């Protein structure tokens, strides 16, 4: 499928399957099984069967743009990671887990904290002692929580849980980095959608006898928002195009940091434009902004990644600051 056709298919998918009722149900705790099934049927959860990260990235970005209440990003990332270490991705809903776990004789013990859709997943992919491990989820002891957007975040307790190991070891931080890149892409998607909504609203909402878009204050604020959205999109695309390459360690960190920063600003600017209607449950804006506020803190906050970037840059030395930048 060409990228254009894929974009069109994703748009149709959202309109058809992610209705407000489905979204509200998901937030109330009912897993949107029909939505997920439709995503699986369309190939959106396993894009590598027919494409690469260009297609997968478009899906992840669209999942953010359309605030889809299902873990498409997690499943895509998990399936890719498994393939890298020679594990055939099992069917069903896959997710990524972070926590403290120990590995002994193909069994894992410890905790995975706030795993996205951990209660609905068939398997979680995590990191233990330099290995990627595939752990079946059903019937684990769980603590159910959610993020600010009402997406399930479920802590899993592992006690000598049998797991599958890959043939190759992985670099420490692999899961976190790919998770960060996914969140960066989702944030870029959500911010672009918020900007689009805000521009459309500004052109239609009339006050003082004219569309509020005609007020310079609104124009200036939305322009400032557009700058942030553009920067976030560029950084996220930097991460996307570096997946699997040497530059990924840098771009995953830079993108998560940059998008997280932009997310806070863009969400605030969008809300300012919408006035009170944007503060209601009924209006769609919060589906985007609550995700932005959640995602910027997941898989490492700005502070976390800035420190990583700073340490890495300083380990290379100030004299390499410019030469290294020109290699990105």
């Amino acid at each position, binding site marked *: 499928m060409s990228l254009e056709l894929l974009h069109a298919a994703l748009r149709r998918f959202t309109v058809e399957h992610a209705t407000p009722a489905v979204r509200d149900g998901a937030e109330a705790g009912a897993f949107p099984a029909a939505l997920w099934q439709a995503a699986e049927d369309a190939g959106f959860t396993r894009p590598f069967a027919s494409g690469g990260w260009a297609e997968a990235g478009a899906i992840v970005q669209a999942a953010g743009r359309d605030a889809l209440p299902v873990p498409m990003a997690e499943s895509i990332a998990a399936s890719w990671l498994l393939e890298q270490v020679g594990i055939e991705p099992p069917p069903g809903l896959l997710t990524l887990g972070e926590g403290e776990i120990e590995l002994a004789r193909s069994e894992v013990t410890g905790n995975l904290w706030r795993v996205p859709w951990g209660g609905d997943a068939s398997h979680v992919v995590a990191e233990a002692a330099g290995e990627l491990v595939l752990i079946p989820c059903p019937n684990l002891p769980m603590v159910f929580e959610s993020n600010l957007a009402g997406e399930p975040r479920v802590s899993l307790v592992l006690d000598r849980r049998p797991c599958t190991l890959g043939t190759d070891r992985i670099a420490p931080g692999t899961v976190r980095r790919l998770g960060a890149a996914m969140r960066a892409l989702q944030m870029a998607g959500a911010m672009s959608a918020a900007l689009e909504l805000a521009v459309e609203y500004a052109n239609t909402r009339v006050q003082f006898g004219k569309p509020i878009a005609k007020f310079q204050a609104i124009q200036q604020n*939305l322009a*400032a928002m*557009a700058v942030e959205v553009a*920067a976030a999109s*560029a950084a996220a695309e930097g991460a996307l195009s570096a997946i699997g390459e040497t530059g990924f360690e840098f771009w995953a960190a830079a*993108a998560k*940091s940059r998008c997280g920063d932009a997310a806070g600003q863009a969400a605030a600017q969008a809300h300012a434009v919408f006035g009170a209607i944007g503060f209601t449950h009924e209006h769609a804006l919060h589906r985007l902004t609550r995700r932005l506020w959640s995602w910027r803190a997941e898989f490492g906050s700005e502070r976390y990644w800035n420190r*990583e970037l*700073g340490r890495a840059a300083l380990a290379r030395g100030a004299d390499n600051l410019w030469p290294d930048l020109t290699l990105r």
Partner: protein
Amino acid sequence: MTAFRFPACTLPPEAEALRAEVRAFASAALRDVPEAVRARGWAAFDADFSRRLGERGWIGMTWPKRYGGREKSMLERYVVLEELLAAGAPVSAHWIADRQSGPLILRFGSEEQRRFFLPRIASGQCFFCIGMSEPDVGSDLASVRSRARPVDGGWRLSGSKIWTSNAHQAHYMIALVRTSGEHGMRHAGLSQVIVDLKAPGVSVRPIKNLVGEAHFNQVHFDDVTIPADRLVGAEGQGWDQVVAELAYERSGPERYLSAFRLCLELARRAERRPDDAALAEAVGRMVAELATLRRMSLSVAGLLQAGQNPAQEAALVKELGTTFEQAMPRIAHALSEDEVPPATVEGYLTLAAPSFSLRGGTREILRGIIARGLGLR
């Protein structure tokens, strides 16, 4: 359409090969230049340095060979610019001629103008300045008052320009002036003329800026003779030409690298204080921003190379870039308990930073351009 596109741009091998050459040249040429001087970057005037760049073919390098250019790509030019700026090279003397006056003459000028001016610019021996602003005319550029009246064989120019960077050291000015119609007719009747700054009737008075240096000037024209062949493009088409020129002005990496020597300084401070987590964090944030800005700036160069007109994207990158440059002194201050002596990188950039979002169009004007691109006006 609400989102601006910044397609990825990969530099070709010949551009990367050129990088090594430029980097080695700059490093040798600037070995003994103190940091506080390097911090001035594209505000530092050094005619000899410009001539040396000209000898190497690094000025006007994308222009046709018959006009003294080297027929290199926009991407090779990009590499030369970013390497010189990052090194803090004194590029101010030829900067405007290379960036906008030359391209303007190449695009709109007569064959005779191209043959006369372009080889001189490319050899680093002919410097230009931009005569747009006037005492009563800033952002509202279309209301310029300087006026050239037609006479036999050309024009007689009267009026004045202000904030003209380098007018006291440049050879020529490209001035936006009224050549027909009345003041208030806005875009119609404006033209661009090349003014010889040595011509009788031209007087140049340097204006000291808040840093204490004189880079910009007030320029008076008292019945200055402008030969007919010094009109650039068609009479009355000056406005469209200026719009094109401003896109050149805004598209380059100088719009995020003005504070690069302070970025380096911050990294050096962090190196000296390895236990300062806040400093390391600031360096990390800065690196993320620099990489993002470079990616976007390079994308604009790629769009130019592809023959597109990325005026909107250039305005957006300039706005993001100057915001970053202006934040740098604030960040450095927030992480320091020391006073800031004037003759330092931080001292200079603290003083110079307010100008970053003024020159080349103010922040508010650029946001207005972005808002137009968003479909808000």
